[in-house]
């Protein structure tokens, strides 16, 4: 019974194994980036960037069909253009980054929807928006894993400047010229992971695997390392459970994965020992000093 429910779908079907591997790769790559987004109070930036990559992916799709490379490059160009333009406007005008980012992502999203609806079909739009994790082929898996590997490596190299940029940006600016570099490389990592994620989960759902596990981890861990470890574990577990639920109940896999991550968030919100609701209702004894 347990074997049939938990293991057989993966033992029997290659597409389920590839879907699981794809989701694990995204969990390892995107979730640590999500932790930093949360710590920098930029969780909604992830959502904005997810919308911003749409026109690039759509143009890639229209030029080359369901070409992984074309859609990836298109998405990267659109996402980075929005990130850089928003950053540029913030630095040279009086507008704050949240407003300039909102302005550019909305323009980008409108362009994307226009392109898809005038040149493609509703099916195409759904594919880009919600992904096709059960249709990941080997090439997609290799691309996805490569992107997330690059992301993990870049995050490791960038870790100290990024922590400082989050904890005390003014200090980083006073001692180093790395502030802008850290900020824009980080935004590039957000875009990179969203582009990797949209092949599996779609542009809208990809941000879910980035933010929900990070938000859940906040209720279980305190240090950055622990936060990342908990968040990646939650993301992996959500992927596994989401795929199984999707398989057994014939539900779309992307939303199923994100809903399981959402459930993990809700449970953490209630039972998490670090500032969760239960801890508020039944506080632990305070320390002596």
């Amino acid at each position, binding site marked *: 019974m347990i074997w049939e429910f938990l293991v057989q779908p993966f033992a029997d079907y290659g597409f389920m194994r590839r879907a699981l591997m794809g989701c694990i790769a995204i969990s390892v790559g995107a979730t640590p980036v999500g932790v930093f987004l949360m710590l920098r109070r930029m969780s909604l930036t992830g959502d904005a960037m997810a919308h911003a990559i749409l026109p690039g992916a759509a143009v890639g799709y229209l030029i080359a069909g369901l070409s992984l490379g074309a859609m990836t490059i298109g998405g990267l160009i659109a996402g980075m253009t929005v990130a850089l333009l928003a950053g540029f406007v913030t630095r040279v005008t009086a507008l704050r980054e949240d407003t300039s980012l909102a302005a550019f992502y909305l323009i980008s999203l409108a362009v994307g929807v226009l392109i898809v609806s005038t040149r493609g079909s509703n099916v195409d739009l759904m594919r880009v928006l919600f992904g096709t994790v059960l249709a990941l082929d080997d090439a997609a898996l290799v691309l996805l894993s490569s992107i997330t590997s690059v992301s993990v490596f870049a995050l490791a190299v960038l870790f100290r400047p990024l922590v400082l940029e989050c904890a005390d940006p003014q*200090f980083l600016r006073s001692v*180093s010229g790395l502030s802008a570099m850290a900020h824009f490389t980080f935004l590039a990592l957000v875009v990179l992971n969203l582009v990797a994620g949209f092949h599996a989960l779609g542009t809208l759902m990809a941000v879910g695997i980035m933010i929900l596990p990070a938000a859940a981890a906040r209720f279980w861990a305190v*240090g950055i390392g622990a936060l990342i470890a908990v968040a990646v574990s939650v993301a992996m577990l959500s992927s596994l459970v989401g795929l199984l639920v999707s398989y057994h109940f014939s539900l779309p896999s992307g939303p199923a994965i994100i809903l399981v991550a959402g459930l993990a968030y809700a449970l953490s919100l209630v039972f998490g020992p670090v500032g969760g609701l239960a801890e508020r209702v039944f506080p632990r004894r305070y320390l002596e000093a």
Partner: protein
Amino acid sequence: MTYALQFQGLTLGYDRHPAVHRLRGEIAEGSLTAIVGPNGAGKSTMLKGVIGTLRPLEGGIDFGGLTRSEIAYLPQQSDVDRSFPIVVADLVTMGLWREIGGFAGLRAAHHARVAEAIAAVGLEGFEKRPIGSLSGGQIQRALFARLLLQDARLVLLDEPFTAVDAKTMADLIGVVQRWHGEGRTVLAVLHDFDTVRDHFPRTMMLARELVAHGPTAQVLTAENQFRARQMCEACAGPPHTCGRNAA
């Protein structure tokens, strides 16, 4: 005597409104100088000009032999995100940035220096405490420990003793005097004239423009204070264009 800073008609401002106007003068190397003046006199703005976060509208600053990496700055309201999940030791370790940069590892000697800096500001036992659990005075002590590790030749402090208790203030003044004894140049924006008289040999009084600069006893006179207030009130009048932006 050589100078650490020479203000050369420095004008700094926000949105074309000058907050420091045509400032001239020198800060001697190794001096301990208090910057005083009424609210809106341009004291914090001047420090931002020195650290380079504000570009001059006119004039400039000659740093003598100082490079930017030899200047440490503690802003009036530190930008430290108190909810960020790091501990005191991590915050203090940031002071080693110029030595270890963004990528080099920490050696045993670095850890020893971090521990020494934390002890010097009286925060032993707090190394593993999250910064979010510290009081205002304790966070100020931790920021002073970070400054200690920066090993800067010029230290800029913007109202460093605001909202700290008498014991913390006495300890932090001890740190400032240690820097002075080591020959470092210290510039501190202060409001409490008693503190300035007791601990700062030199004072620069600003009221958007320079009011007086020299030995503290000669600067903190009733006449200078009256003049500073009058000059600041005059600044509140309707603006006019001047300098290189003038039509």
